[in-house]
């Protein structure tokens, strides 16, 4: 099914929540074209030549930052990357001052990763540049959800009706929130599994099924998405030990047998092997974890291209 939208309505990508299903399809369809670019011997197109993209990473992230940088370079944009450490942020500068200083450099787009929810919106309300949310606290991480959807669509040919089970630290995960918005908008069936201490209040109102058993979540699943246990964010009141967590919610080949034939295993990374996922599964035949990384570049190229005013080109 091809998308009906031909452009994005907003200048920014702050989350999946404000997007329409047509806009989501548009991004995914556009990404298909860019995946092909990545397979060429010369992996570069002139699309964003002369445009300045600033990557403002105020929270440590290697994976997402590198993925955005590659996407920007393949589109021929000029890029600048800032991180929090050693910057004026550590000297007490506010986000608004940082942003206004960056704006003086007249960027066309700012990609921001920040530990506090709503910070991309603060910039979007203030600055004329396009703002791309690369993760704001536990709020949203839209490009991750888009690359996950791209990967699922590639495997199953569709999103509607696919049974997706998301397992792990739901409470602290921005990935899960963006994925829920996206998958429910695209009519996939979403099940969440975690101990109640890692399940946020009233999340079933987002249109998902909530269970507290890994086996129940795996039963009938087409897609098993394991979330990272954010070791740095846990206290002893969320679960007793990593050992107990792995025994109750860790994914092993035996437990995975409950999932549907042809089920795939995803993980947004970075993984904690032996905590939420065993190495047998992570490196096993069902795992699409490395494809997710590859697709991430194509999806981010599509987002940058569309926000720069690009349109889907019929091939």
């Amino acid at each position, binding site marked *: 099914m091809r998308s009906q939208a031909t452009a994005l309505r907003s200048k920014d990508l702050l989350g999946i929540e404000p997007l329409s299903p047509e806009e989501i399809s548009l991004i995914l369809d556009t990404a298909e074209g860019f995946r092909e670019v990545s397979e060429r011997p010369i992996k570069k197109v002139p699309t964003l030549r002369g445009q300045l993209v600033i990557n403002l990473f105020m929270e440590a992230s290697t994976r997402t930052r590198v993925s955005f940088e590659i996407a920007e370079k393949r589109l021929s944009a000029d890029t600048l990357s800032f991180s929090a450490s050693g910057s004026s942020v550590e000297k007490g500068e506010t*986000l608004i001052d940082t942003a206004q200083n960056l704006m003086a450099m007249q960027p066309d787009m700012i990609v921001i990763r920040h530990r*506090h*929810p*709503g*910070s991309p919106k*603060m910039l979007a309300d203030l600055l004329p540049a396009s703002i791309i949310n690369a993760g704001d*606290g536990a*709020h949203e991480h839209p490009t991750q959800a888009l690359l996950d959807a791209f990967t699922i669509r590639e495997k199953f040919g569709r999103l509607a009706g696919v049974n997706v089970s998301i397992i792990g630290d739901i409470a602290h995960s921005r990935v899960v929130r963006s994925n829920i918005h996206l998958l429910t908008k695209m009519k996939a069936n979403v099940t969440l599994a975690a101990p109640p201490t890692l399940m*946020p209040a009233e999340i079933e109102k987002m249109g998902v099924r909530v269970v507290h058993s890994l086996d129940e979540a795996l039963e009938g699943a087409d897609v098993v998405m394991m979330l990272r246990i954010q070791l740095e964010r846990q206290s002893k009141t969320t679960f007793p030990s990593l050992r107990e967590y792995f025994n109750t919610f860790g994914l092993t080949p035996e437990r995975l047998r409950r999932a549907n034939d042809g089920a795939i295993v995803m993980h947004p990374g970075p993984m904690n092997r032996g905590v939420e996922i065993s190495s047998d599964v992570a490196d096993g035949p069902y795992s699409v974890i490395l494809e997710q990384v590859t697709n991430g570049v194509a999806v981010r190229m599509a987002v940058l291209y569309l926000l720069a005013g690009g349109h889907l080109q019929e091939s």
Partner: protein
Amino acid sequence: MNLLISNGRVVDPSQNLDRAADVLIEDGLVAKIGPGLKAPKGVATIDAAGCIVIPGLVDLHTHLREPGQEHKETIRTGTEAAVAGGYTSVCAMANTTPPNDERPVTEMIVAEAQRNGVCRVYPIGAVSKGLAGLELSEMADLRGAGCVAFSDDGKPVTNSKLMRAALEYARMLGAPVIAHEEDAFLAEGAVMHEGYYSTLLGMKGAPAAGEEILTSRDIHLVELTGGRLHVAHLSTVGAIEAVRRAKSRGLAVTCEATPHHIALTDEAVQSFSTDLKMNPPLRSEAHRRALLEAIKDGTIDVIATDHAPHHPDEKRVEFDLAPFGVIGLETAFAVCHEVLVKSKTIKLAQLVDLMSTRPARTFNLPGGTLKPGSAGDVAVIDLDGATEFASFRSRSHNSPWRGRTLGTRVVATVVGGVVRFDGRPSPAVEGKSRPQAARARGARR
């Protein structure tokens, strides 16, 4: 100190009065109420035709920020905000810098209010030294210096033994303890209400249970001590239930609700506006409805603003990092009139009761009534008028209603027979904008 307020509709719940009448103030006290009163020679008149004339509003929960946080508010600017909102008395919370935990601080507040304040200011003393929650402050000394109640507001008294002692000791002094009810462990790191919207926004929420736990604890302590408890800014179904039960058992428990908890819910926080961040946080619609019910059935004694100014620089940060609190003195009556009276939830007289008569009675303050012989504290309000909240007299502007226009307009606020706020159009200061003119006149003593 002498003034005639004529042709208004006098609404005074303390004497079941709601009729057209004039109010004559002499020597700072209400002298007479009745139709067709004549102004004695040389006595100024306020024409209140088309307006209500009510006992001046009384706020039991104001953060004036002075001493120590004068970049947020001063006694001068805070009381100017108060009279602009129809308030004639405010009770100043103790969490200043230094906190009001010693007589010299209370004396400074009282002196500064007399020198530069434009309405009555009643200090509230700290329950504990340094608001640290460890040892009692010198409450008798504070009471002697003019404190009308005791509170560590801003944070809860987590130590049950200290709270017990505070209730017992304050009982001896004939003063209530005002409690900010929040289980500090459950609320750790929270920036909003825990519920669907905190989940949606990925922000840390404070569960309603935390407020209910401490409210229940303190009611048990009232039973134990015979003390007098006033629960600040009630915001949850369970806390309301607890207070309702306590009252039905005849315990000395009163409580207040804020205009923002009555008018707004956590749904609004989706805008990430830091002008919606306060503690207790905006709760869900079910809690808000319970507050409306509790106002209707009388469980809520008082509407108090929890006026909490913060400098724009402090609020212009990420929601997680912004300080808790919103200002409320200038908008309170307009907001409550819209949400409670225009919606026909309660009658006008009940609103005046909640914002003036009962607050005064709850802390045993002058005012809250227009009975002859009582303080000449009056607000004249045009219910058909409108106020645009484009700017504020408060030094800070962290209001959820900034930029909004709300129905009702304060026409004049009179404290002890002196006009401290004049919102009437004035030909004498043509060329100047009216708010400035009013401020200049309001400040005249």
